[in-house]
């Protein structure tokens, strides 16, 4: 039993590294990013529907969220990834796009809940002020509520991105070509061929290289947004002029916000 040789055999790792970096990493990122874009677009509509006063919008939206959040990812991937083509949605030859769609649908359920909580966390006065100016519900949502809601939920969305990156390791089950393999599949293939776990460890390290920095981005955003909230609250209560560091922080936040646009 040699732990180093079983898990950290450098020759094995070096042999698989080019595939991991050139094929696996791009595919994992394409799958996850594609799913996040799809999931966010869909998620915001599901979120709005789930907050609607109209039952025919609200109930299906809630059901959609409950189903997709309640089922194991692997079951959903098989059901939807194979089911969509079987149902007649045969737009693509490869199962790769169906993988993105499936991951996106799963993510959309979580993202819908994220948006819903972000929007419901806003003070009701924001909606009231917008409506009092004569804005329709839709216009108030578009100009006032959603922009603020999205900002509030950026940390949670980044967390969801991390979860989707990890979930993307399951879609290979739909059957991918050699060039479509993502990190896990490449590692697993090599591990099976060689009977050594080092390629999987290498794949794991690749995941961590993406996900760990992202978790720190989340922490950083959380901190910064909290500071922002404190500054806003201080302004509202009219506490005596902000200390210089606070003012500088406020201005920096301001610049960043401007830059992000």
């Amino acid at each position: 039993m040699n732990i180093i040789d079983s898990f950290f055999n450098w020759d094995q790792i070096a042999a698989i590294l080019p595939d991991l970096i050139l094929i696996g990493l791009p595919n994992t990122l394409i799958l996850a990013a594609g799913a996040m874009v799809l999931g966010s677009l869909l998620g915001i509509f599901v979120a709005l529907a789930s907050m609607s006063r109209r039952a025919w919008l609200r109930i299906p939206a809630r059901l959609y969220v409950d189903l997709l959040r309640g089922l194991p990812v692997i079951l959903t991937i098989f059901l939807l990834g194979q089911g969509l083509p079987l149902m007649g949605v045969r737009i693509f030859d490869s199962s790769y796009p169906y993988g993105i769609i499936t991951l996106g649908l799963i993510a959309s359920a979580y993202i819908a809940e994220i948006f819903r909580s972000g929007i419901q966390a806003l003070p009701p006065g924001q909606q009231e002020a917008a409506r009092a100016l004569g804005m329709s519900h839709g216009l108030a949502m578009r100009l006032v509520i959603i922009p603020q809601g999205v900002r509030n939920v950026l940390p949670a969305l980044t967390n969801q991105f991390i979860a989707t990156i990890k979930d993307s390791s399951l879609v290979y089950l739909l059957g991918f070509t050699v060039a479509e393999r993502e990190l896990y599949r490449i590692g697993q293939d090599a591990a099976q061929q060689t009977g050594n776990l080092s390629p999987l460890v290498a794949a794991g390290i690749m995941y961590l290289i993406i996900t760990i920095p992202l978790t720190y981005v989340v922490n950083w955003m959380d901190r910064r947004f909290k500071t922002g909230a404190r500054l806003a609250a201080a302004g509202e209560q009219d506490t005596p002029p902000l200390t210089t560091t606070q003012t500088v922080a406020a201005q920096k936040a301001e610049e960043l916000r401007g830059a992000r646009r």
Partner: protein
Amino acid sequence: MSEGAQVATRNGEQEAEAPEMQTTTPEPGTRAGRVMVRGVRKHFGPVEVLKGIDLTIEPGEVVCIIGPSGSGKSTLLRLMNRLEEPTAGEVIIDDQVITSPKTDINAVRSRLGMVFQNFNLFPHMSVLENVAVAVHKVKKRSRPEAQRIALERLADVGLAEKAHRRPAQLSGGQQQRVAIARALAMDPELMLFDEVTSALDPELVKGVLDVMSRLAKGGMTMVVVTHEMGFARRVADRVVFMDGGAIVEQGTPDDIFDRPQSERLRQFLSQVL
């Protein structure tokens, strides 16, 4: 015409009170902003917060609504632009029954200004955008035109130089003046003020009240829910005292503050003055 009698007495009061208002008001003939509240009741669940309110506000009139907290003042105000729906009764603005489901409430609201206790500025927009956004998106003016109007209204409240700040960078008093500018930029017929100085530190109250006084002198129709008795006395044409979801007493500031008729008003005044 049930309001006929009231109109007559109202005009009598106004002539004596504020003759200068007529001169500064543009086109008095077309002046709009008459609010009629008729038989309005409002329940929140089992609680009846308004127990049958009848109130008419004439164009150009400044009406201050006072009363203990929980008396239904804010609810009454919020019914006037249908932020609350009445359980019974109706609210009519310029012959339009705004409580009817058929009314285009957004069009009505675009002619009414409202200022809130907590300012409710949009924190993700600059001060200028806050004031301009509805002029552009609701009144459909061009963006440059909306911004020009916004800058003018900001200048009116003395904050033109803060146009490119964010609301969070302003003091509470300044934020509230921006909120007033935001409402005024829509060129409203009527302004509703909901305890607009209650969230402010005492030294910041005056700046906001000064803006409101100037507005009143300019002939704006105003309904002001307030705890500022000094303001009500100086600026109001009429003071309405509410308690327990009903209008207990109303009259000129002198009537209300110097010759209170009801025991409840006397008691209230003894507590707040």
